[in-house]
């Protein structure tokens, strides 16, 4: 199926809004779960969008903009996964791999913006010094506006402009290659989880990871709620234990201190 001009423009408009949202991290409509769903809706295939949303969301679970870093772009990944699946008839799992070049390219565009937006700071300082707050507000919002248009243009070109090229490319793939992409789509969440573990996992947390893993392997339930409840309970237990531990440590230190103090006075006398 093809993407019509109207669909291309409406996806670009949505990318503009989601782009602002990702820039500000406001409502999280920039996450693949929402991006895929909306893109699917705009293409007239809501179900495809939702299914792709679940898949892409997990693949990007660990790719987070923590501490001012930039992950591969979740908006472009979401849009292109749905668009490629829709136009070529491949499964979302295959499409997610093909969407990655777009996602990584957008990541580098944002990184480039982070650098060049430093040029606005000098002007911003001047406006504050002169007390021109309205102008200050405009220059501070300038990066947001530029980013928004970058998303609209980039997504329009990717979705509408490159579609015939994309289709030829994808349809000429041999079976083992598209099957390889499908497999990669299924393994990709491991990268995200690996990244999450990089920032969280310490040796003392490995038992909890194994508990969660084992629970999920053997509790047959439609979603992850049981594991989340087990995790919350463990967290609760640990929170209480640590608080008691801190309290005891503090009391212990106080006693130690008072002993030392009284000892000192005794010596003085």
């Amino acid at each position, binding site marked *: 199926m093809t993407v019509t001009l109207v669909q291309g423009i409406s996806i670009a408009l949505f990318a503009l809004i989601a782009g602002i949202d990702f820039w*500000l991290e406001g409502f999280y409509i920039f996450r693949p779960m929402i991006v895929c769903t909306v893109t699917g809706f705009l293409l007239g295939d809501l179900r495809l969008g*939702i299914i792709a949303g679940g898949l892409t969301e997990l693949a990007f679970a660990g790719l987070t903009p923590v501490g001012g870093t930039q992950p591969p772009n979740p908006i472009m990944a979401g849009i292109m996964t749905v668009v490629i699946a829709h136009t070529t008839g491949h499964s979302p799992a295959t499409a997610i791999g093909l969407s990655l070049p777009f996602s990584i390219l957008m990541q580098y565009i944002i990184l480039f913006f982070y650098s060049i937006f430093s040029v606005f700071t000098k002007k911003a300082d001047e406006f504050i010094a002169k007390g021109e707050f309205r102008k200050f507000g405009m220059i501070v919002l300038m990066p947001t506006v530029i980013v928004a248009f970058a998303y609209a243009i980039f997504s329009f070109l990717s979705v509408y402009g490159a579609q015939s090229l994309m289709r030829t490319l994808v349809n000429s793939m041999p079976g083992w290659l598209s099957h390889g992409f499908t497999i990669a789509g299924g*393994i990709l969440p491991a990268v995200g*989880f690996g990244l999450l573990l990089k920032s969280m*996992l310490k040796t003392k947390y490995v038992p*909890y990871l194994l508990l969660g893993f084992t629970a999920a392997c053997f509790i047959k339930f439609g979603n992850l709620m049981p594991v989340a409840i087990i995790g919350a309970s463990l967290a609760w237990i640990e929170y209480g234990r640590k608080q008691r531990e801190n309290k005891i440590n503090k009391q212990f230190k106080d006693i130690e201190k008072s002993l030392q103090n009284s000892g000192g006075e005794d010596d003085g006398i």
Partner: protein
Amino acid sequence: MMESNKTTRNKLSKKDITKLGLLSLFNQSGMNYQRMQADGWTLAMIPSLKKIYGEDKNGLIDALKANLQFINTNNYAAPLLMGLGASLEENNENRSTIDSLRVALFGPIAGIGDAITWFTILPIVAGITASFAQQGSILGPLVFFIVYFAMFLARIPIAHLGYSAGTHAISKIHENSAIVAHAASVLGCTVIGGLIATYVQIDVVTKIHVTASHTISIQKQFFDNIFPNILPLGYTFFLYWLLKKKNVNPVTLIVLTFLLSILLSWMGIL
């Protein structure tokens, strides 16, 4: 000159703090590598500071200049610090006290904010809603949207907390942050364990032909008998090891995963 420092400042109303919480949305509007969120942070602070300083325009400009310094914090922690900042300005605290508190707190508070929002809430919400979404149910994206809309609204009580709690409570939060981060990590790691088992899919399709009529499936009769999902767990740990110990770039790992998948697909193993 000392006199001007002692002029009493205007009080902010509850509505002003609510507005501050909502305006914290703009914290990242002017993001750049030079001073990260500073410009957007200051933009969000302007209405509150304007009211606090009233006629004292020079005081206002000095305060805004002081706010325009490097800051990089978690976006849900920002309203907490903004509320605290507003209460300190209102109480006419020393300029250097206000600034050094902000600088001292934004890092640790960001750490605990990231641990809760990105590393605990997101994997849980993503994991649960994805299971709905993969069956094509609108509940997936709907629940996801509702949770994060509520998270946005939470900026308001967070700003109020920062404003009314004052320095004493914030330092208490700072003290407790290690415990909260610990509890969040316990929850996060448990859920990630579950996510690995549920969503990483590696199935070996190779079969060993023992006799013409009898074949052994490596996946079903070997790996699944050792432990289900042992391959996803192993591969995730392999990636973790590359990320942590070898400092490999995530994009490299994505490419590696693709190359491996395509190679193994070509060989007929996966």
